[in-house]
């Protein structure tokens, strides 16, 4: 039997729908994934089959083919584990689905015991899922705070495969986590440094004030020990507050890079990066061999 489960996959910061088509038929037992998967997706065969077994279901030895459409785009990472597992359970008639699968996206990495591990880039995935038109997205529990920042889509955090199964059977409901964006206090920003630490230098301070207000580039020239570094480091204490839209843009990048804190995923401070001068061009502008988001 054929089943189709939807997922959202990121290419850079742009997301697109991946249709996970699973077909289980009689024939020589095999398990194959097609649709330009890379090595990390090929490994998901082992994770999926063992996770299904350890969740109390049978992984039947029949001919199983999984197709990831669109088949022309290369995909990597483990976030497609969950939709593959759900597809196999539906195709083998072990899961009678009662929900509208065309409106739900599934994202998550499986562990061998059937629990669902967090993935990077949940924030942009949810933003893109909302843009594509999904009503709901099933995500790892550990990512739910981060996902709740996005307005207009129900992000449901799940701990393990069994929770997803009983939800799809209509036996349980999953509440989505809520973040009250308006109540996140900007006043919480406390610094141990202050512009009043630097005596004199009114000209440079004025220049930095203008730069901060308009976002202009700035160059400080001076003899050693005059306070150039001190001044620049204190710039963060006078930068304007991040707006919601700007904050979302900042968090998208940090989410894909896997740099968001699971407990406190919201960034309300403007980033301040000061790389050492031994940095390479690649580390400065980005890109490795394949410029894809980390671990996704």
């Amino acid at each position, binding site marked *: 039997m054929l089943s189709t489960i939807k997922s959202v996959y990121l290419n850079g910061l742009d997301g697109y729908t991946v249709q996970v088509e699973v077909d289980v038929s009689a024939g020589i037992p095999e398990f194959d994934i097609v649709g330009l998967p*890379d090595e990390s997706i090929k490994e998901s065969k082992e994770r999926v089959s063992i996770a299904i077994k350890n969740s109390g279901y049978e992984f039947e030895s029949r001919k199983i083919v999984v197709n990831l459409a669109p088949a022309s785009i290369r995909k990597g990472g483990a976030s497609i584990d969950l939709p593959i597992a759900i597809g196999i359970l539906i195709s083998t008639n072990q899961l009678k689905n009662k929900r509208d699968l065309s409106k739900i996206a599934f994202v998550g990495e499986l562990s061998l015991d059937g629990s669902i591990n967090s993935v990077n880039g949940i924030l942009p995935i949810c933003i893109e899922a909302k843009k594509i038109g999904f009503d709901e997205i099933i995500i790892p529990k550990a990512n739910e705070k981060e996902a709740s920042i996005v307005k207009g889509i129900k992000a449901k955090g799940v701990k393990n495969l069994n929770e997803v199964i009983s939800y799809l059977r209509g036996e349980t409901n999953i509440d989505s986590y809520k973040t009250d964006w308006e109540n996140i206090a900007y006043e919480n920003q406390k610094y141990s440094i202050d512009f009043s630490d630097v005596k004199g230098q009114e*000209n440079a301070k004025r*220049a930095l004030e203008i730069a901060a207000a308009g*976002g*202009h580039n700035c160059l*400080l020239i001076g003899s050693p020990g005059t306070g150039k570094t001190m001044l620049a480091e204190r710039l963060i204490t006078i930068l304007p507050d991040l707006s919601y839209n700007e904050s979302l843009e900042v968090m998208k990048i940090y989410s894909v890079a896997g740099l968001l804190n699971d407990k406190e995923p919201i960034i309300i401070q403007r980033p301040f990066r000061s790389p050492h001068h031994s940095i390479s061009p690649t580390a400065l502008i980005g890109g490795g061999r394949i410029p894809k988001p980390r*671990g996704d």
Partner: protein
Amino acid sequence: MEEGGYQNHGEISLANYGVLFLDEFTEFDKNVIEVLRAPIEDGKITISRVNSSITYPSKFMLVAAMNPCPCGYYGSEVRECKCTDTLIKKYLSKVSGPLLDRIDIQVEVPQIKYEKINDNKVETSAQIKKRVNRARKIQIERYKQDNIYNNDSLTPKLMKKYCKLDYDTGKLLEKAFNNLKLSMRAYGRIIKVARTIADLEESKDIQKKHIAEAIGYRVLDKNYF
């Protein structure tokens, strides 16, 4: 993860909507700082490899700090500089003209006088931030239809709309343009800085003094470079 590429986000993307601070600017490899040229101008970076190309935003504010010469005391009033002319030229040439042209505000940080050390009438960050926030709010309000958040992101078309100069102010800028041999880009950037100075004063129009101050932040590259 893909082979060989675990660092995929550059510092410039992580500094999006924030600050990229490059201390000891001249110590960076020349090819490292020159790659900044395009992202500074475009606000985004496109990385192309054999099988894919990806664009990340990079709307950062570059802040660089450097010494004026290898010994550090060229132009200083307190200590004598021991560098030869050629040495200084070589040192400063690490910052190229095209890059310098993209830096709107260039300012000297001199040695301070002893009397200043015990000066307690210094503004705190909170006081400055208040003014900065107010100026930024004015910008966000003004550009809410235009999908930009600050003066630095103004396009030439938007500048025509929001940065009108009166006759006198235009004349002043013309004089500076000719005398300082400014580039067309520097011209635009001076107006953007003047717009910010006017916003800090909550002035609706860009006045002569705003342009004059903005030009003042441009002359450094003629003194040193």
